[in-house]
């Protein structure tokens, strides 16, 4: 192997190892990261709409983040907001005026 190729191979190996180390050490955070978008959106939309009483347009603008969501469902009958994004779906449900909204089990 030529010296130049050898250096590149070593550098790539080191970079790969560093990335692997970073992924392993941050695994618990990485694992739940995709849920942030849908959890945040569903919880904040739910409270904005049912607790504060703002309209749908306002609450979408309030809850949106820089990563767009892929699906949104407002279930008025069950007072439930479900949001999908980054491959995960999460829901928040409105309990009552005193207790507001709560996220359902983590997806």
């Amino acid at each position, binding site marked *: 192997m030529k010296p130049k190729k050898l250096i590149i191979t070593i550098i790539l190996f080191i970079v790969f190892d560093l990335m692997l180390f970073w992924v392993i050490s*941050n695994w618990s955070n990485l694992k739940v990261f995709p849920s*942030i978008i849908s*959890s945040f959106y569903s919880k904040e939309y739910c409270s*904005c709409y049912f607790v*504060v009483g703002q309209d749908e347009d306002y609450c979408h603008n*309030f809850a949106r983040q820089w990563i767009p969501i892929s699906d949104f469902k407002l279930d008025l009958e069950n007072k439930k907001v479900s949001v999908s994004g980054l491959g995960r779906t999460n829901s928040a449900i409105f309990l009552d*005026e*005193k*207790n507001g*909204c709560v996220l359902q089990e983590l997806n």
Partner: protein
Amino acid sequence: MNQRYLISILLLLACNKPAIELKPYGDSIKVSELKKIQRDYWPTQAWKSASPESLGMNTDKLQEMEKYSFTLTGNDEDRLGIRTDSVVIIYKGKLVYEKYAREYKKDQKHLLWSVAKSYINTLVGIAVRDGLMKLDDFAYEYVPELSVTEEHKKITINHLLTMTSGLDGREGYESNPMNSTVIAMLYTKGRSNMGAYCSSLPIIAEPGKRVYYSSCDTNILSLALQNVYGKEKYLELPNKELFNILGIRDLTWEKDGSDVYVGSSYIYSKPTDVAKFAFLYLNNGYWNGKKILPDGWVTQARTPSEGYKTTKYYPGLEKNNYTAQWYANTGVPDAGIPKPMPDIPSDTFFGSGHWGQRVFIIPSLDLIVVRFADDRKKEDFSDNDFLKPIVESVQ
């Protein structure tokens, strides 16, 4: 090559240099006890209104504040600039100014975000008043989840109140969501039991020695209260011991998956009701002759955390004068930390929440100012520039 290497190292060192030089200091800041103010009524039913002119206020100055607060300075659809939703001013116990904007109307609740932390200060104060817990008690006695290591067991109730638990909380929101413990606590792995999740964080500083603002510390306190009172009594606690007495009838306090109040963030309340809560503190913890908070409690809420003595510099430290779930405007002069709001009286203390939520109490002027907003960039709005004309209007 060597020269470039040296320059890089020097640049790196320069970037890490603290913005201020912290100095060790001896005595704590002494904040004098608030003087009792005689009130001709209490706003339990409702605030009595008065015109600013009738109380000698300069209305030109109020207009100046109004122009600063309510003029949209950015594109609202892009959520840029100053985006004030409401301002309420109570002067000498009277409602002298209220204005609502954007989609907000009078009598509509607003999310308080971290202003909620100050309400946890009150609930802990009530538990202390009733002899159910003491500030020096070890927190693990009330939160078994905090028995992770011997170091965790050293955390006291007072450490949690004054943001000096030493737990590795990371308070970033939008800036670094993946490593943020507050995001994990509110939305992902912590949401089923926030206090328990927070208790599991590693210790990175000796408890009591390092001030670091962390929502986790507040939610461990909230969990401690649930264990002190028992689930049923705890759920009744805010209404029974606080809101019913103050006449706050329409307030939402959301809970985590274990029925623990999210003390760090999730209260929804009307601005005039938040002003009532502030009025309790302005009156040194008394409401219409009834003692709600124990002796010295409000003084502690106005005194910067003891932990500043031993806190090493980290970026942003100088922006806060954290007390006990409140902020002070005293500065920490001996430590080289300036007043956060240079044009505002030093005795000002305040609750402060994400995206511009504020409740300011200025005892020397008998003044309360509540401001709700949706400022997505904190640098767009200046507390000092907002409050300055209000302070000048009464001087």
